[in-house]
């Protein structure tokens, strides 16, 4: 019945009223909607403040945390229970799991696991670490996250990126990284394997870094990019240098 400023998918929800931003929702606007249920994604510490405030006003708030596909599917099922649409949620999870299984089977037939780096933000570089959905997306798509940091995000210097020598370089584009330069326009990263081979792509932040059903699209898209030899069921649009998309790499 309402959304935050940043929510724009699916397109039909843009008609709904906005209650502020995801980091600082306007409590008054939330209460004005007289909600039966408020869903919130667990994140940074400040995010729990509005939850406390809403609970104090007697609003039911369910807080979810999804850092793996298993957790994501459990969240979808629980939201199904809370909203009285258990069957739809179950069907959705089954469908997503089936698609992941297809990719798993195709990837297990391939050899070679390219070292990938997922750029969360630049130029003041932040890369995806080992904990979080991006790491699992890379693994399921037949790659290895070359950032060894156990945290969700890792701050890296350019020198460290060169030392890690990623063979595939993924640059997310979205609110966290509004105007990243393509890899071939970054002279100091010209010697990394991904730049030499041209295996560098822009990807959609919403698809990779926001937990949701679209993370499965991300796995399909990335699997086709990292392992073009598999017959790809990918529906996602890859924005490679060589593709005919208008997206300029």
């Amino acid at each position, binding site marked *: 019945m309402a959304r935050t400023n940043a929510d724009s998918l699916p397109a039909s929800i843009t008609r709904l009223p906005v209650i502020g931003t995801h980091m600082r929702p306007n409590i008054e606007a939330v209460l004005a909607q007289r909600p039966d249920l408020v869903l919130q994604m667990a994140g940074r510490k400040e995010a729990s403040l509005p939850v406390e405030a809403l609970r104090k006003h007697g609003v039911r708030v369910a807080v979810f945390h999804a850092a793996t596909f298993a957790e994501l599917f459990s969240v979808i099922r629980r939201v199904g229970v809370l909203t009285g649409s258990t069957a739809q949620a179950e069907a959705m999870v089954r469908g997503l799991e089936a698609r992941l299984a297809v990719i798993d089977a195709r990837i297990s037939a391939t050899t070679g696991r390219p070292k990938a780096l997922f750029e969360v*933000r630049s130029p*003041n570089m932040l890369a995806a670490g080992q904990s979080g959905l991006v790491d699992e997306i890379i693994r399921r798509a037949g790659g290895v996250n070359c950032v060894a940091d156990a945290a969700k995000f890792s701050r890296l210097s350019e*020198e460290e990126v060169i030392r890690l020598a990623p063979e595939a370089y993924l640059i997310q584009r979205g609110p966290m990284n509004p105007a990243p330069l393509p890899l071939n326009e970054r002279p100091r990263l010209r010697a990394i394997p991904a730049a030499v081979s041209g295996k560098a792509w822009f990807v959609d932040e919403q698809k990779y870094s926001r937990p949701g059903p679209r993370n499965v699209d991300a796995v399909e898209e990335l699997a086709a990019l990292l392992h073009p030899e598999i017959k790809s069921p990918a529906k996602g649009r890859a924005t490679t240098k060589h593709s005919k998309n208008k997206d300029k790499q």
Partner: protein
Amino acid sequence: MTTGARDSRAQGRDLRTKVLWISLICAASLVSGIVACGLGSFPSTPAQTLNALLQALGVRSGQPVDPALSVVVVDIRLARVALAWLTGAALATAGCVFQGVLRNPLADAFTLGVSGGAAFGASVAILTGVGSGLAGGALVDNLGGLSLGGLAGSAGLLPLFALAGALLALGAVLALGRAGGGPSGGMNRETLVLAGIVVSTFLSALISLLKSLDEESVSSIVFWIMGSFQGRGFEHVRLALPYMAVGLGLVLWRARELDLLALGEGQARLLGLNAGRSRLWLLIGASLLSGAAVAVSGVIGFVGLVVPHLLRLVVGAGHRTLLPASALLGGLLLLWSDVLARSILPGGAELPVGVVTALVGGPFFCLLLGKRFRGQA
């Protein structure tokens, strides 16, 4: 020289001390520059580092250099050494001038709103997305006919926004100072300092406004304001160097007048100095220096404060020696601060260099103050 023989002997000793100190700092800078090119998270032996540096100079040594190592040593480390040294030199010189002109031992680029202006300019650039990447590139393309495009180059428009912010802030401070300077139109230093504080405070409120308008940019703005050389390269050196050179030339040319101004305005007038005009030129020179420094590196504190104070103890207060000595030592200090910033954390993460200078500079400044108080007692 009309002084007696004893005086001239003392002056000779003085001169020798000054020359000794300056050559010491020069030598240390050179050695540090080369050593710093060998330090970082990418593994490299001293021989490999030297080899890569020599190759960049066009000296062929026969041994092939790993292209990745060559990028790391030359394009990243050497560029950062050069940029850190230049920035440190500019900040220390500017601090020295601000302290002399305003006769305020705590004055630096923050006092006159120059840093605040640059930070505001950078925040606008980050918020509108012209700071880096495609939007900036497109804008540069559109401005192709102007020299601005070539000037910004691959560094993006952020440094230009920051520089423009710095100069606009200074302009506002000078205008305010002039307006408040009474019917004669002259500026007095109290008015200038007050105007600087007013402008700084207003600008920091504007930065807070920008941050609260766009939560996604907060971390970028905060990181920029803390000051860092991460991701900087020779394009930033090329961008800052002309402004720094002009600024340095201006303040060195007026160094003698700075000595007179430091005596106080009345004394300076008695000695035949047009105090208002020389103050204006010196402030413009120092603002070019600090504006260019802040534009490429973000806000870095304490260098402009600690270095001139330390050097006054060893080379004296004469600005013709103090200014070049400050430049050299400021460069050396920031060079090593940046090496610490990029190598102290494990896992290839970096500290903002502004944090390092504050952590090193704060306690050091306290020591200096303590020493001075004991000296006076």
